[in-house]
């Protein structure tokens, strides 16, 4: 049969050839792993992936290719729900990882207990980034509501980081009102607890009166504070705050660690159904497990995340982290799902702040 070559077919031929070439390129040596992560982990995973590929080829003698995807934590979770084939996810909060289970059923209910420490191999916390010399004398949460202080934090409706900020401030009030957070679970103190919660609500309300810009994400807020020069204090992830100082010079900003803060646990998880489909379960499991090794922990600390197992992590990294009293979201708020529904869903406490 002769294929009649008509000029009109040329574009189609070009498309077909390009498509074939594209498919050809995608076939690469060795298995491939896709890690879907959030924004501030970019530098950390770049280095960790290199280390893991070396580790893996030493153990198994096989090559490995790791691809990354970064973006806002919630957006990344939605991509996975909508079909982005991630073998593992490493997101900012357990709530987003759990959404993948709830909405798409890609992993079992007990995903969070499959790895040590709530599936969070590294942690962070919420600190204050302030201008050099601390002109407004901001030392703790209650200084945020002083008359002339302007606070920068993202919108908790769109930013995972902002939710940690909000909950950290709430926990501070509970702690100052109750003296000891253990009393939250004491049935005899129910009245005092209810009272503390309403005080916390007032305090949060007051903080947001000092906020004039609510960026959609943590990086946006950092830019507003650092580049635009707006605000006296930025509520930030500890790792982001360190990064800002590291990138922009310690002569401009300082970190203030408040008296108490929240333990931010960025969760990692294997996406079972995808990994089984790709036949990458074994690699993916090892990839996550290796995060807990001395090598993984050291790299996390190097990139300003607090390691879970500090043994073996060089002192030069460990001494960056100020000792601070940290509480967990499970302990104080009864887990993400509850906190989300009560505080951040439509009509929740946050919306009431802006009720006309």
């Amino acid at each position, binding site marked *: 049969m002769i294929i009649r070559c008509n000029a009109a077919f040329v574009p189609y031929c070009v498309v077909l050839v390009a498509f074939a070439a594209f498919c050809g390129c995608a076939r690469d040596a060795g298995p491939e792993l896709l890690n879907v992560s959030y924004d501030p982990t970019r530098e950390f995973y770049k280095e960790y992936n290199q280390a893991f590929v070396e580790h893996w080829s030493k153990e198994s003698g096989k090559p490995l290719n790791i691809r990354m995807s970064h973006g806002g934590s*919630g*957006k990344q979770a*939605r991509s996975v*729900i909508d079909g982005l084939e991630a073998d593992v996810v490493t997101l900012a909060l357990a709530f987003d990882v759990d*959404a993948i289970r*709830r*909405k798409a059923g890609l992993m079992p209910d007990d995903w969070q207990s499959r790895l040590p420490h709530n599936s969070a191999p590294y942690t962070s916390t919420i600190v204050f980034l302030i201008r050099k010399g601390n002109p407004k004398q901001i030392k703790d949460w209650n200084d945020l509501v002083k008359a002339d202080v302007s606070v920068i934090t993202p*919108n908790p*409706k*769109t930013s995972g980081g902002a939710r940690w900020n909000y909950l950290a401030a709430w926990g501070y009030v509970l702690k100052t009102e109750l003296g000891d957070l253990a009393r939250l679970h004491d049935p005899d103190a129910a009245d005092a607890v209810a009272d503390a919660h309403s005080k916390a609500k007032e305090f949060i309300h007051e903080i947001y009166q000092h906020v*004039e*810009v*609510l*960026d*959609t994400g943590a990086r*946006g807020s950092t*830019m507003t504070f650092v*580049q*635009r*020069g*707006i605000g006296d204090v930025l509520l930030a992830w500890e790792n982001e705050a360190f990064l800002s100082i590291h990138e922009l010079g310690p002569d401009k900003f300082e970190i203030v660690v408040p008296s108490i803060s929240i333990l931010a646990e960025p969760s990692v998880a294997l996406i079972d159904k995808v990994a089984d489909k790709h036949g990458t379960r074994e690699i993916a499991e090892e990839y996550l497990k290796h995060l807990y090794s001395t090598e993984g922990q050291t790299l996390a600390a190097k990139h300003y995340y607090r390691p879970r197992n500090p043994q073996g992590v060089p002192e030069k990294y460990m001494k960056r982290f100020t000792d601070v009293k940290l509480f967990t979201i499970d302990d104080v708020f009864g887990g993400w799902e509850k906190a*989300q529904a009560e505080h*951040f*869903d*439509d*009509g929740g406490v946050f*919306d009431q*702040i*802006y*009720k*006309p």
Partner: protein
Amino acid sequence: MMSLKQHSVLPGFGLTMGFTLFYLGLIVLIPLAGLLLKSATISWSQFFAAVTEPQVVASYKITFGASLVAASINAVFGLAVAWMLVRYSFPFKNVVDAMVDLPFAMPTAVSGIALTAIYAPTGWIGRWLDPMGIKVAYTPLGIMVALTFIGLPFVVRTLQPAMEDMDKEIEEAAASLGATRRQTFIRVIFPTIMPALLTGFALAFARALGEYGSVVFISGNLPMKTQIVPLMIMTKLEQYNYAEAAAIGVVALGASFVVLLFINLIQWWSRRYAA
């Protein structure tokens, strides 16, 4: 379709029509149908509650108000720009002409960040406005600035061809019949370019309604004050509430449809009036 084909003198009607329907279906109709289907997964009362929340209602006002203002500003100043580009020749005219397209070409996030940097109280322009008590960045005014920026090329690029097509003779005739310059503009030139101006206005307006990337950087996103409709959709998505996000999307779509229909009606009416 067969009967239509017989009336056409040009060959290839069936093929192009088939392609057009297929293409529009794939690119436009299927996603829109998906939007409607998604919003239909909740009951009417839920739908109604979602789209009439105070914060959402406030965002309609901001988005439609700012888009309307931005498109109006562009209609006036875009007309002036197009006029200058068509009527006069001057050095580097091509450069100026190409500059009009920049808002088209720039990634919206880049323009948003650039505008914020300039209009923030520490920025080049913001630092002069701030002492006068004019705040642009992080206010509704900032939203209007961003929407004006992205809408400009739509007005200029639709007006240019219409102005170039205008016959000089008509103006000369008007002048020789004793019309003043003002009369010539209002009675002769303006009616001719009116349909193009309206189209440009409608395009700029429609573009502004959906703009997200540049606005979120400059708006400050304060609930009830500077949250735009696309941001409300994003906040619903962050809560994994796809159905309510789609519901707001449907309302925004319906509203833009009505506005565009209205503008098309005016256009149709003005054409008839002109003829």
